[in-house]
């Protein structure tokens, strides 16, 4: 019944619009305004441009200021401060250009709207002007590029030797985390070794893998360099930690990396935001299938001492599942057994 009523309503509305349209067409024919070069609508359109400029201008400034704390995520990494500064410098520069060009673009239509008794100025070119507005953007952009390039080089430079390594592996639709253990070296992996009990495909014949351990969340120390070694098991994923200003694709067959220095512990951030529930998060930003929107991992930033303590409490893959050590060469098996006996202490 409602559907029928809505249908009738829409039909009625359409027929009214239709009649208004026909009447205005006929009126314009009678008035002869369709023969004129510019009718009264010309003025209305000119005024609307100015109204648009003022209206949307006010809306933009009001919303940008009101919502600032909402869209500006707090920064929790050293390089994030740099990239955010670049962002806001660029915003200032482009903002000025945006305002000037738009004021001109919408004021000119009002100012120079058609008048029968006026003739447009024949002004085909001016090389000096062209050179100026080629050179000025060129110089400004060069400044932006160079500052961006310096930041980029620092961010993508090789990680410091002492950086804490964490491996993050993306798969449909979650992240798996592996720590290298005491030696800070991740063991080899091979995707053909992946089984239900070895989801990372770790090669346990490599001695370095014996002390590797998994973790349900990414735990990292504040103020010390952390190196994310990133890989993917099936399709492309992308590690995105918004508060860390960190993003790097996870590519099957091609390991990638990103290093950074976290600057605020989770606790500190909770206090700052006055939100006891706050957690740093990792999301996926490369389309990867049905569950793309739900690939969440929590990062916990802790004080360095707490980090060391946490490290010492973790159990390696072998310790958690001794069957993984089966079938290894005697030499490696011996090392694995030492591991196991350590955990029993």
């Amino acid at each position, binding site marked *: 019944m409602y559907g029928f009523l809505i249908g009738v309503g829409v039909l009625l509305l359409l027929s009214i619009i239709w009649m208004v349209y026909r009447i205005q067409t006929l009126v314009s024919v009678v008035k002869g305004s369709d023969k004129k*070069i510019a009718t009264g609508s010309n003025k209305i359109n000119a005024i609307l441009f100015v109204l648009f400029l003022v209206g949307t201008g006010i809306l933009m400034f009001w919303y940008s200021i009101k919502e600032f704390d909402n869209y500006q995520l707090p920064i929790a990494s050293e390089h994030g401060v740099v990239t955010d500064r670049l962002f806001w410098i660029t915003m200032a*520069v482009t903002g000025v250009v945006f305002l000037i060009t738009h004021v001109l*673009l919408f004021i000119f239509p009002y100012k120079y709207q058609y008048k029968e008794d006026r003739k447009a100025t024949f002004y085909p070119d001016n090389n000096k002007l062209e050179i100026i507005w080629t050179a000025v953007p060129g110089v400004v*952009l060069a400044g932006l590029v160079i500052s961006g390039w310096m930041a980029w080089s620092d961010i993508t430079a090789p990680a410091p030797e002492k950086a804490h390594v964490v491996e993050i592996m993306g798969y449909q639709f979650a992240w798996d985390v592996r720590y290298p253990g005491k030696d800070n070296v991740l063991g080899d992996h091979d*995707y053909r070794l992946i089984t239900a009990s070895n989801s990372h495909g770790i090669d346990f014949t490599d001695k370095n893998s014996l002390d590797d351990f998994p973790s349900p969340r990414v735990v990292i120390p504040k103020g010390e360099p952390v190196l994310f070694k*990133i890989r993917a098991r099936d399709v492309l994923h992308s590690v995105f930690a918004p508060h860390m200003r960190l993003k790097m694709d996870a590519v099957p067959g091609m390991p990638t990396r990103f290093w950074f220095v976290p600057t605020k512990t989770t606790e500190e951030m909770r206090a700052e935001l006055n939100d006891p529930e706050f957690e740093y*998060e990792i999301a996926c930003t490369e389309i990867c299938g049905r569950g793309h929107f739900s690939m969440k991992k929590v990062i916990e930033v802790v004080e360095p001492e707490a980090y060391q303590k946490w490290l010492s409490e973790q159990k390696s893959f072998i310790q958690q599942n001794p069957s993984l050590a089966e079938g290894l060469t005697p030499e490696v098996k011996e090392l694995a057994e030492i591991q196991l006996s350590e955990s029993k202490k």
Partner: protein
Amino acid sequence: MATASVAHHDAAVHDHHDHEHHDNFITKYIFSTDHKMIGKQFLVTGIFWAIIGGFLSILFRLQLGFPDMNLEFLRPLLGGWIDETGKLDPTFYLALVTMHGTIMVFFVLTAGLSGTFSNFLIPLQIGARDMASGFMNMLSYWFFFLSSVIMFISLFIKTGPAGGGWVVYPPLSALEQAIPGSGLGMTLWLVAMTFFIASSLLGGINYITTVINLRTKGMSFSRLPLTIWAFFLTAVIGLLSFPVLFAAALLLVFDRSFGTSFYLSDIYVAGEALPNTGGSPVLYQHLFWFLGHPEVYIVLLPALGITSEVIATNARKPIFGYKAMIISMLGITILSFIVWAHHMFVSGMNPFLGSIFMFLTLIIAVPSAVKVFNYLTTLWRGNLIFTPAMLFSIGLVSFFISGGLTGIFLGNSAIDIQLHDTYFVVAHFHLVMGSASFFGLLAGVYHWFPKMFGRMMDARLGYVHFWLTFVGVYMVFFPMHYIGIAGFPRRYYSWTNFEFSNMYTDLNMFVSAAAIITFAAQFIFLFNFFYSMYRGRKATQNPWRSTTLEWTTPIEPGHGNWPGEIPTVYRWPYDYSKPGAAEDFIPQTVPLSQTPESNLPHEQELVKLELEIMKDEAEVLVANESKH
């Protein structure tokens, strides 16, 4: 003079041919070789796709703006893609996003824009009877049609259309196990795109040859309207970049169907380790963006060309910096090929490469800036007439500025780390390439409708259409900047899984509402378009009092465009409001020798030369006549 006489001879032959030519329905409306009809075919098909593409976006905007809404009412249309609880299926959501992108970028803004106006305008504005090869031109449309049919079918198959994003990155697009859309849907996508590329190449070769070879007498490159320059350079870009997409697609076909490993390596999916090793997904990204970035300019340049023409005509003023405009378009053409990897700053490629591409990318901002300043100066001290076409052109310049400036953020690799694949990117390219090109398309339709159909579109409906769309587009895409700065990732079915993005439900609702209104406003245009085609006011020969050649043809030009001889061109296309001239425009066909009152000093010197040439030609003509 030999060439001139040949041209005349040809023209004479054509004339006879013209009179004897009788088209039946099929040769006139379906398998037509007339560039004007082919242009209209592209336009109507483009409009069809725009409705579909727009409608798909409304579907996913419903999900994003009103996540709790019961979508049961869509079940008659979407069937099983609406689950038992009335929610949109997340896989189908991805398919919607993918098809929206593919349709809008390729089928609407490439074929619908470039296909329509390059075909329609090139012969009319350079003074040619038709394209260099009418048959190839017809093939171009019918390959596009075939491609459209295949892509359309893929929307309705059981496993759904391709769902890996419009960029269809492997391995996702190569593995049926990873997403159902990568099965038959992806196969159809690849087949459709293959035909599409063939269509683009056939069209492009034609546009280039026609512009180079078939310009009328006096129509030197420095007298070409900017539209033609834009179409010409667009065709060059397409011709050089589309084959690379074809290569990328072909390798993907091999990986999908024949067990090769161009893009695949070390994959464990659905409980099974695949045998592929040694491939690189990043290789595909390089190949794809080698087309993908120039593609941005393939859709944008024609729009900018159309705008240049419309703004000059309706400002009653020459386009400011004609040469600077050409040089900046040339600059954009060349640079468009060496900026592609700015889409890949965080793809894992060598960061050094990222630095190089950052430099190159920000260089391309310079010619774009020059174009904007030239548009502004063209408006300055003009005598502006706001036809709907003019309104859309001014709207385009606004979008070009707004969307272009955010490109400076994204082209900077350090800033891009945070913004990459967030809604900031979505806002950026929807403004600068999507909406700007769309406005170029609409401006072109409003401006050349009288030439296409011999009737006028209703101006008032055009104004309403413009203001609703212009405000609507900003209301849709401007808020996305805030959402993007806040870090909301693209292609997300829902953001509530994450703390950091568990907000802005109000803003997303606003965006969706604005999108629905904007989409609805397009039906005003559709009504205006189809109604005016049959019932619109009859057009006069030169309704906008424009200088270019197409307005010297009859109101409804037949096959061959000019019933008599092709007009000769004596001046550039932007003699508007010339000091001393009686009217505020001088068509290109008026010789300088007839306008001594308005000639500039350097033109006055050319008059003598012009008179000599005309005298020579008159002699040749007389000689030819006597031979017959």
